[in-house]
């Protein structure tokens, strides 16, 4: 049952309705590990964005030459190549961020969000639609990481983008920059989204009843 989608739907879908982190729960490793500051979240998002766009374009344009028996290995090879490139470029042009992110740059290779888009979308759609899908997913990932990074940095260190927000008397909630804080933050965000969705559904039901 093929669904008819317009190009704009390809783009928008990944940003919110099917947000890779918050709805599909993919790519949680970087989302939990490196979002202790907004800057780190942004660097990770940028690297992931680069990798997913390049991989999607390459996979969708080469899909005819890739036998399906070795498709997963080919996708991983493609992704690993772009991750290595992103790693080297970050190290050269953003060495401070590269140091902070450490091994998590290399771990983009095993981000199942990227592999998932190749297998589920790029390998069966045109280059143009795959690129739109990758951009949408990349933006969705960025939004999720920035939400987490902002929340954790504000509470965990009392700063936003290294700018102190509260006076010197603010006692930072260190737990939020520790790994446990990542899980707490993700839980809170998903809780808030669930509550919002539920309220929305209730309102729709109510308006249907009164109509």
């Amino acid at each position: 049952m093929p669904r008819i989608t317009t190009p704009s739907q390809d783009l928008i879908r990944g940003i919110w309705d099917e947000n890779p982190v918050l709805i599909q729960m993919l790519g949680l490793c970087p989302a939990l590990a490196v979002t202790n500051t907004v800057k780190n979240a942004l660097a990770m998002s940028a690297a992931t964005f680069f990798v997913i766009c390049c991989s999607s374009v390459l996979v969708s344009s080469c899909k005819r030459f890739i036998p399906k028996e070795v498709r997963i290995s080919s996708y991983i090879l493609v992704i690993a190549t772009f991750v290595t490139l992103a790693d080297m470029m970050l190290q050269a042009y953003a060495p401070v961020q590269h140091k902070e992110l450490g091994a998590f740059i290399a771990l983009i290779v095993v981000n199942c969000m990227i592999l998932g888009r190749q297998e589920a979308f790029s390998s069966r759609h045109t280059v143009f639609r795959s690129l739109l899908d990758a951009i949408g997913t990349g933006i969705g990932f960025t939004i999720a990481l920035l939400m987490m990074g902002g929340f954790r940095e504000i509470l965990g260190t009392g700063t936003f983008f290294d700018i102190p927000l509260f006076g010197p008397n603010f006692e930072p909630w260190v737990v939020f920059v520790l790994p446990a804080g990542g899980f707490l933050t993700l839980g809170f965000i998903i809780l808030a989204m669930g509550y919002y969705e539920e309220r929305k559904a209730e309102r729709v039901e109510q308006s249907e009843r009164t109509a």
Partner: protein
Amino acid sequence: MNGKLPADTLAVAPPGTEPAPQEPLEEKVSTFRLVATLAVAGILAGILIALVNQHTKPIIDAYRAQQLRLAVYEVLPAAATYNTFYLLDGMLSSTLPEGAKESDYKRVYAGYDEAGEPVGVAVSRGESGFQDVILVIFGFDPASNTLSGMKVLESKETPGLGDKIFKDQAWVDQFFDGPQTPLVPVKPGSGKGLPGEIDTITGATISTKAVIAIINNALAEWEPVLEGGIPEEGTQP
């Protein structure tokens, strides 16, 4: 949850649950083609990585060298210039034997003031901390057996706790106050005022003790070599 499953999420479906192929069994692809596809892809990937590496490597190396230069001047505040000496058979030498790889040799950075008088040496050393290796560089004056500074070059210590070894200025400042070596870690407030006492940080006990141990171990290794004094400033730039 939201009840609806996002479209296209069959990404990581386990083998066997894939939808049945439309045509009844396509003709089998030859093993040669599978290997050839992966080989070609691998070669292309390798070429691409090599090209980008050629472009980024000098930038990365230059940045590393600059960071090291800044760190040496930071831990040897009195130094105006410095010179690298390598350890060759227990002796300090400013030049390496022909064809030797620089990274194979231990080294110190000897600092000199404006008049060319030696002011101390900077030594870097890495050892295990709480999470991973902590890489530390510190300045040491063999004439008076005191430290002139310390900087953490690399560390993955716990954010908010162990990372105080480079974020807590009061702790870092202790190394710039010229403590006598060997250093003695003491709990804050329980020191007896002896030279060489360094207050550890509550909550970062392991990390702070590790830094002190790294410095003491490095000195134990280098002090015999440095006993003869710091070599005169060489002709090396």
